[in-house]
């Protein structure tokens, strides 16, 4: 019975992330538009976009290889699996022991690896520029992210995300300098990883200023839909991750009743809304950086996360 229940929770989690991801993207866009005093598209516009893209035929560049056609599904799968392992409304996921935080980061790394390859496959200069900048950003964002994970793992005594969330929800953890540093670093990394302002601009159509959009320039139809879907999932994943680690309250404990799950779901939706609003607010109040300013930005994240880890090496109570 327990097994069936936890299996159901895992399945629900996989469905929830899939269902909510485009909504979150639509919500962020809507808030941004309202903050700029525009009406903005409906929050369900991303669903319509996906449906339309899925129905359209694919126009493939003559030079595109089989890899180019496989990659959208691979990226989608890797991101989905990673997103399914981050606790959203309920903890104690059935498969949470399959991959810990380090493995989740590495799964996202795999998705990025293949996306960068897709950028280079057709052999256009835009794809190349996007791929080369993406790996430059990743080469700084990934270590910062890993060091943040180290800090979290040292506090919680585990790299297992469910355990980390459970430990950080206990009152003994309290406010810590190291966790504050880890939070700032994680937010900075999340901005870079999701191609948000100030690192990259998700809305621009001037390809020269872009990183992520330049890589996927040659994609169309269902392939583009999968990649857009994966990008939405990734945004949802990062907000869920920050929420479940730094705001772990309300996550339904394994074995709690229906009320617990309802509370967990409400809390999760509220966290997503707050996270999405903060992201939109931040993006409207700051300008995009030049691409060679990005290393400085990510260098700060790297230093903060290293400092947080060092503090924990110095004393477990900092």
């Amino acid at each position, binding site marked *: 019975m327990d097994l069936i229940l936890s299996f159901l929770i895992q399945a629900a989690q996989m469905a929830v992330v899939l269902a909510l991801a485009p909504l979150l993207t639509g919500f962020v866009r809507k808030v941004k538009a309202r903050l700029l005093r525009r009406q903005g598209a409906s929050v369900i516009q991303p669903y319509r976009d996906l449906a339309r893209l899925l129905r359209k035929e694919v126009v493939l560049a003559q030079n595109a290889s089989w890899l180019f056609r496989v990659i959208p599904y691979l990226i989608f799968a890797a991101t989905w699996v990673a997103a399914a392992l981050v606790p959203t409304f309920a903890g104690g996921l059935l498969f949470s022991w399959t991959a810990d935080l380090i493995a989740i980061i590495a*799964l996202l790394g795999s998705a990025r690896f293949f996306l960068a*390859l897709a950028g*280079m496959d057709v052999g*256009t*200069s835009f794809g190349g520029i996007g791929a*080369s900048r993406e790996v430059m950003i990743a080469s*700084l964002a990934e270590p910062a992210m*890993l060091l943040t994970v180290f800090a979290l793992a040292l506090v919680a005594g585990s790299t297992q995300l469910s355990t980390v969330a459970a430990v950080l929800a206990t009152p003994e953890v309290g406010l810590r300098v190291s966790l504050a540093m880890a939070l700032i670093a994680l937010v900075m990394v999340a901005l870079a990883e999701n191609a948000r302002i100030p690192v990259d601009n998700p809305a621009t159509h001037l390809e020269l200023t872009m990183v992520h959009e330049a890589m996927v320039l040659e994609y*169309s139809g269902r392939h583009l839909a999968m990649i857009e879907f994966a990008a939405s999932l990734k945004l949802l994943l990062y907000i869920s991750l920050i929420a479940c680690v730094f705001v772990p309250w309300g996550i339904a404990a394994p074995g709690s009743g229906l009320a617990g799950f309802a509370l967990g779901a409400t809390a999760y939706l509220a966290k997503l809304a707050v996270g999405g609003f903060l992201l939109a607010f931040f993006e409207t109040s700051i300008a995009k950086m030049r691409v060679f300013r990005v290393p400085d930005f990510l260098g700060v994240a790297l230093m903060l996360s290293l400092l947080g880890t060092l503090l924990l090496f110095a004393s*477990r109570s900092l």
Partner: protein
Amino acid sequence: MMQALMIHLPLVGVLLAAAILATAIARSASATPVVYGICAAASAIGLGAAVLSLTGGLSKEPLVLPLGLPWVGAHFRIDALAAFFLVVVNLGGTSASIYGLGYGRHEHAPHRVLPFFPAFLAGMNLVVMADDAFTFLLSWEFMSLASWALVLAHHREAANARAAYVYLLMAGFGTMALLLAFGLLAGPGGEYAFASIRAANRTPAIAALALVLMLVGAGSKAGLAPLHVWLPLAHPAAPSHVSALMSGVMTKVAIYGFIRVVFDLLGEPAWWSSVLLLALGGATAVLGILHALMETDLKRLLAYSTIENIGVIFAGLGLSLAFEANGMGWAAALALTAALFHVFNHSLFKSLLFFGAGAVLTATGQRDMDKLGGLIHRMPATSVAFLAGCVAISALPPFNGFVSEWMIFQAILQSPSLPGWGLKIMVPAVGGLLALAAALAAACFVRAFGVVFLGRPRSTVAEQAHEVDGFSVAAMAVLAALCLLAGILPGFVIDGLAPITQALVGGTMPSQTGDAWLSIVPIAEGRSSYNGLLVFAFIAISAWLAAFLVHRFASHELRRGPAWDCGFPEPSPATQYTGGSFAQPIRRVFGTLVFGARETVEMPPPGDMAPARHTVEMRDLVWDWLFAPIAGAVDFAAGYLNRLQFLTIRRYLSFVFLALVALLLVLALWT
């Protein structure tokens, strides 16, 4: 039970006989298949026997042969550590020989390769089996010289001759360091057998000196910074299957030597040695991969990436020493297992990648990435195998490279309980460096695969390339499959390594194969676990499911058209990103610090018809600051000493007399 040495020693004999046979028949057409066939068979048998002895299927009694020094004899022994490295050596040997069956056909001077290839394999086998200092050093030198001869196989190219010269110098220097190390270990009594070295007592100063000398000797062979400069010259100069052996296997034999002496013979480690290893390992990893990122020669790129992986392995060994010195056997076992697992993984994917580079070289005659491109259309099998190698070496799940990196990170997370500020600060810093190196490795192999195999061909040779022969493809396919297998079933490898950690650091990781669904658990279930099999299954199932649903219910139409490229597609393939332009952002970020890189742009004024120029200047700072001054000093001294060359016999006699008197004086004062 059969004795393991009774299988391995005759196999070495077979390999040496094959070397002699090759010398005799090298110029006949059948020489290539015969020699590589013998090598493949001997290595495959050796591989089977080594796996058996690692799992306890063969007895491990030592053996003394009446060879070598008359009062020592030649001692041989295969314990768990040696058996594991025999697996690495013979697995590399088998795949390289199979690859050689196809690749060797294109060799234009087979008589310069065939005799030395089996000799090289025999040398590596002997180093691992040796159980006394004399046999060890002799085999080590034999291995070095055989590989040197292979580096010099294409000796008419000036770059190869220089590479071989630098290699010979560094190998000689390394062996000298090893000689001194073993001299110190053997002590004044001259006890050369490893058993008596292990039993001897020595002062901490002697042990420290031996450890540093070992680090210099084995580290220079493995490619530890700053003694790595010969490696990116020599490894690519050899034929590709030999490059694979040198990078994938010989560097591991060097690591074997280091582990044998430092973990086994020296006994209780000093805490500072771990700080030294961690610092060198972290620095080597980042330096190596940054060099690889800047390189446009495919084989040199792979050689630099070897340096990175050696850094990772040494960092793992350093962690293990730190834990062992502080009595944390279980954590030492975790770090040592991680390092050994990475040894195994690197031998797999580096051989695979060098085979891929060799296949590209056979098909196009090019090693320069900026003249390749689009090979995925013309070499489908090679490109799949090479891609598997790239994913594995970039430490991405579900392949094997990720598992060993993951275990090293898990070991780092156990280290806050270590005492001492040196380690407390060093360990997280090294963790950051290793994370940086892993991320840069992914960038490096996106670049390597993207520029060589994707995009449009940048030259006519790339346009007209063909898939290579069946033997080469088979060797690559087997290694690619092993990379995936070791990644999704890591528990079996970890359990196989347990007897080694038990013997060396007195602890083991918990048994892995009994866990549910074959997940791996470094310490305890609640702390961390990873399941490569399920990750692989989940990705495969959800990717297949997504593709199936989309094709079934949404659309499956497809139309080919010209590339969009924002409305301005440029027909010339020269407008694609090249290796150089791809690395430019990373060069901007790290280059000034690590390479002293400088970019200058010459833009002629409007109206001037002169071409604009963009020049990048990069320097190897290790070469400039460490090796160039030494070379200068040697030159300077040689210039002075040269005067002694043309003296009269009377002068020489008086010099001899003076030297004799001086030495006798010293001796008289000493005693």
